[in-house]
């Protein structure tokens, strides 16, 4: 497939064209960049590092209705995700797209999750390569990703200065290129090589790393190791590291009923770092302290997930390091695991 280019002057026009779909793009409010549905191309903020909240919420919403009911009535009406329509997530980072590809495995594991999978089917991911690593704590290259990675993406954009280089990666991506045919032009012939060089340069600028080899196998042996108590000592038990993680996918299910009897069963993000996450109705909690919860978080990502799906559930986006209020650093923990 020949490479295309999208001149920066035409980005607005392209976004306007795409707003016939449910268009999701990074937007800035105060100093926080979050993905949101935009109707005006001017809202899109494409010169960003990475978003604070990952775009996972458009595949796996923070709160999502499973079905509606009226109390006392036997009729349950499942949510029809189809109604949300075709969605384009524009400008997400390769790590976040790769995270979606990783989480896809869980949601189709033995039982298909109809809500998630339908939404993924309806969604086209337009990635934005990281010409510069967005943060000092990026470590995607340690986990098989890359600032120019394409896994999970349908289309990849690369900022070439005056224009974006556009590479279609899947059928969905090609379809989207067709939609944008009047905004896209042919890319210069040497851009492919240029982009390759840029990718190598960007990879070279990733400064943090971990050798993950052997970690999944080693973690279960460290169950009683003293390191867990140490690394979790400062933990506040908040949900930052999990809610902002692009691969964290745990959820709670709760019922909400209005005075009228109309209600819904919905699911919402939950965090294994919360105390009530595992507490039994009897009051017994199999993970009674932050030590057990931290150990579970690391094990889930680096041992349990690979045991089932052959891939570590971490993409090295660095959010949990950047935003932890007490500077708990997953790479430091993993270093200790390696050294233990």
């Amino acid at each position, binding site marked *: 497939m020949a490479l295309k280019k999208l001149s920066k002057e035409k980005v607005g026009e392209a976004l306007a064209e795409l707003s016939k779909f449910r268009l999701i793009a990074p937007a800035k*409010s*105060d*100093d*926080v960049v*979050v993905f949101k549905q935009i109707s005006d191309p001017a809202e899109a903020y494409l010169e960003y590092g990475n978003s*604070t*909240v990952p775009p996972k919420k458009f595949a796996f919403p*923070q*709160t999502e209705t499973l079905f509606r009911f009226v109390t006392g009535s036997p009729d349950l009406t499942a949510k029809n995700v189809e109604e949300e329509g075709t969605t384009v997530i524009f400008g997400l980072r390769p790590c976040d797209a790769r995270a979606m590809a990783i989480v896809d495995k869980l949601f189709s594991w033995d039982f298909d999750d109809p809500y998630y999978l339908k939404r993924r089917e309806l969604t086209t991911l337009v990635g934005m390569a990281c010409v510069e690593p967005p*943060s*000092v*704590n990026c470590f995607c290259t340690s986990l098989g990703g890359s600032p120019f990675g394409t896994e999970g993406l349908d289309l990849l954009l690369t900022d070439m200065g005056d224009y974006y280089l556009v590479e279609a990666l899947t059928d969905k991506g090609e379809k989207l290129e067709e939609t944008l045919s009047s905004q896209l032009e042919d890319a210069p012939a040497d851009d492919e090589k240029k982009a390759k060089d840029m990718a190598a340069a960007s990879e070279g600028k990733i*400064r*943090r790393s971990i050798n993950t080899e052997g970690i999944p196998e080693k973690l279960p042996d460290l169950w009683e190791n003293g390191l867990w108590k*140490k690394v979790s*000592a*400062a933990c*506040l*038990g*908040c*949900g*930052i590291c999990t*809610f*902002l993680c692009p691969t964290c996918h745990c959820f*709670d299910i*709760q019922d*909400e009923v209005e005075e009228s009897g109309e209600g819904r069963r*919905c699911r*919402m*993000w939950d*965090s294994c770092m*919360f*105390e*009530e996450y595992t507490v039994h109705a009897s009051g017994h909690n199999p993970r*009674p*302290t*932050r030590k057990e919860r931290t150990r579970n978080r690391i094990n889930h990502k680096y041992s349990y997930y690979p045991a089932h799906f052959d891939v570590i559930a971490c993409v090295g986006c660095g959010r949990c*390091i950047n*935003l932890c*209020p*007490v*500077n*708990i*650093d997953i*790479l*430091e923990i993993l270093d200790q695991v390696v050294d233990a």
Partner: protein
Amino acid sequence: MVDVNKLREKAREVISREDVRELIGYRPGTYGFRARPAFVMGPDDTGELIFTPACVNNLASYIVLEEKLPVKRGEEPDLRKVAVMVKGCDSRALVQQMEEKAYDRDRILVLGIPCRGVVDMAKVQAKYPDVLEMGEIALEGDKFVLSFNGTKEEVPREELVADKCLRCRYPTPLVYDELLDEEVERFADDDFADVAELEKRAADDKWAYWEEKFSRCIRCYSCRNVCPMCYCEDCVLDRLQPQWMRRSVDISENTAYHISRAYHLAGRCIQCGECQRVCPVDIPLMELNRKFYKDVEDLYDYEPGTNVENPPLLSTFKVEDKEDFIM
């Protein structure tokens, strides 16, 4: 400036005491200019301890965050003291906790650190986004001196200092067993101009402002968990019977959350600013807390966390309390 050697020496002395179980202080973080809480369990762990303007965390939170597992049969509960390093603002959390009888004074050993201000780490991060190797920050006069990668840079204090420090009323801890440096005289005051400015706006304007902020909230509850005054064993947010706040994330529940969080701190918030510091989506939580702080001061002439003998604001009253709003 706290002399780091003196600090470590003192810490060593304290943790060696038989009646002290643990010492909570600061140590360098894992990258850039970060510092983080340190949990010292024995004299050998004291070598990493520091105090610099990067030590932003309020360690008083850990006193009430401690997880108490049931004592095993045949074992005695460990009743030794916890030693904790506190800045002026942080010390007020201890005062307020004790005012509320959260624990007895002799449960803690307070190492007070007079403080001229800490940095706002977000501002430091924005100014030096590329610094990965450990850097150091010191406050020299009215400048922060940042050393990193073999270079030194001076930055005016106002540029990087945390907002709360510009209005600090209590730079020297109000409670301590030992003071690790010389007392610092009050160098600033608080006129609540920010709150007054927002108060003046029209109702629609105010709501538009807060609606945008609250709609960003992802309910990670970091603001609750970091707060030294949020220590209920059974938080109303987690209760299912009755469930006052739904867990779904939308403007109604988010607003309800922020109202109850702020209200629970009415007359209790000691302005350490931790909630706002930790918020990943930059909700100006202190603007909520400060509204209560201002009203409590204006209406009841009460300042939380300043006197252990004070009765908690909302569990007391005066017959002559204002009631011009009552029909």
